[in-house]
Structures are given as C-alpha cells and as structure tokens.
C-alpha cells in the first residue's frame, strides 16, 4: 500500500512541470545537513571511521563554539554519535557517522544531482 503510494507520488512529480518539479525537490531537501558546517561534518565523517573534535575543527576551519552547536544538532537528529573519553589526562571527543546520517547524505547528494539534471534538461 505504502509502496504504491510512493510510486504514485513519484509519477506525479515526474509529470509535473519543470519549475514545479524543482520546487518539490528543493522542498524535500534535508534542511539539517543543508547548512555548510553540518554538511562538512557529515561529508568528512563519511570517509573516516571517526574524527575528533579538533580534527573536524581544523578540517572545516571553524571555531569551537560553531562546531559544537552544529555537531549537537546532528547528534540530536541521530546523524552522528559522539563519544567522550580521556587520552591520558586530555579529554577527547570523537564523532562517528550513523547509518541514518549516511543515508541522509546519500539522499542529499541525490537531490542535488536531480536539481542539476532538471535545470539542464529545461
């Protein structure tokens, strides 16, 4: 039932005028990872098992506060997991991408490619 509903929705989108189709796809965008720093965190974690807070900070050239806020939002959405430990006496915060986070990035990439294709075809 749910599957046929999904097919009907896809067909409706495919037959809609181009401007409308782009509008639908833009609306479907995952706003959570659309933001630059969050997109950077998810992309960096997609090619690494885990990255520490300091590694992400250096990679994305951002501040402690900014990275903290955005990482927390991804954590709340369960796109990343955060583990805190000590390396000797130094605290270490490590982030990992979850399966949901990886799927979200894949969906986002699909949307971006679809947007580009749609505007090129038009």
């Amino acid at each position, binding site marked *: 039932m749910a599957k046929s509903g999904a097919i009907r929705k896809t067909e409706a989108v495919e037959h809609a005028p181009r401007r409308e189709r782009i509008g639908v796809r833009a609306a479907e965008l995952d706003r959570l990872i659309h933001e630059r720093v969050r997109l950077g965190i998810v*992309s*960096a974690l997609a090619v690494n098992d885990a990255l520490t807070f300091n590694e992400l900070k250096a990679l994305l050239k951002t501040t402690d506060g900014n990275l903290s806020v955005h990482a927390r939002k991804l954590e709340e959405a369960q796109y990343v997991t955060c583990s805190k430990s000590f390396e000797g006496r130094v605290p270490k915060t490590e982030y990992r991408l979850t399966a949901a986070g990886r799927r979200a990035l894949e969906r986002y*990439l699909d949307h971006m490619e679809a947007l580009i294709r749609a505007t090129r075809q038009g």
Partner: protein
Amino acid sequence: MASPRPLHDRAVDDLRYIRQTMERAGSFTAVPGWGQVAVGATALAAALLAARQPTRELWLVTWLGEAVVALAIGGWAMVRKAYAGNDPILSGPGRRFWLSFISPMAAGGLLTVVLYRAGLAYALPGTWLLLYGTGFVTGGAFSVRVVPVMGLCFMLVGAAALLGPPAWGNWLLAAGFGGLHVAFGTLIARRYGG
C-alpha cells in the same frame, strides 16, 4: 535587495564542497616535499661513498647508515609538516597511510637479512627500491595523487635493478633514493606546500 542564488548554482556549489571536504578529510597530506629533497641529497652522497667501499659488507653498512639518516630526516620533516597543517599522523588517513607503508618496509628489512645471508646481496638494491615503491603505492592511496605515482617510479627503478646487471645496483639506488626523492620532493613541496 540581492536576488536569491539560482538552485542550480547552489547545488553545483554544494556538490563541489562535499567533494573537496571528502578529499581533504580522506587524504594524508603531510608527506614532506623538502624533507624528501634532503633525503635524496644524503642518498646521492651515500651512493658515492658506497661505490668506494672495498667490500660488500662495508657497502651494506654504508646504505644501512643512509637508511637510518633518511628515516630520521623524513620522520622529523613529516611530523613537522603534520603539526603545521593540523594533519593527524596517528588517526584517520594518517594512520591508514602508515599501516600501508610500514608493511612493505618490514618485509624489506627481513628480506635484507635473508638475501645477505644467502649470498644474494646483489639483489638488495632491486628489493629495497621495489618494496619502498610498493609502500608509497599502497600508502599513497590515502594521500595526494603524486605519492602513488612516485611509488610506481620507485618500483620501475627497482625492477630495472632486479633484472639488470648487478653492477647497476648502486647507481640505480642513487637514481631512485637520490634522483626520484629530489624530483618528487621538489614537486610535492611546490604543489602541496613544504
């Protein structure tokens, strides 16, 4: 009021950003260019010195001494570049680079003992060059593109040393550990900084 950016432009920009972030996050960029030039210079000096040695033992000692010097220079330059660029050596791509690089080096160390004991010292230059190149080809998969290309060049010189006359061995070591290090080190330093 500025008009909003077209969706197409934003999408292209986002895809480019994702790709660049993934490349940066997935590559170990602390392979030191100038450090390699210095290693190349000491290798050229070692080749001249080794060629003058009267016995096979002293020739081997000369090159083993050069290996220690090269390890010290290369290691120091790599740690320095990694710290300067905030590129971790013991985690992420840095860790994968090392794990891939060290295995052929360990095999080379073991084969040095075995080949020397078996009286096959003439095969050492080719073995060293081939395994050193293999280390850069495998480790280079986690680094910038020029690193595995450099590894491949070392492998080709190593193959020439293994298949050519034994008399070429010392000079192919000079061409590989000296010439290739200087050439690729200069390229890496200029293109990727330091």
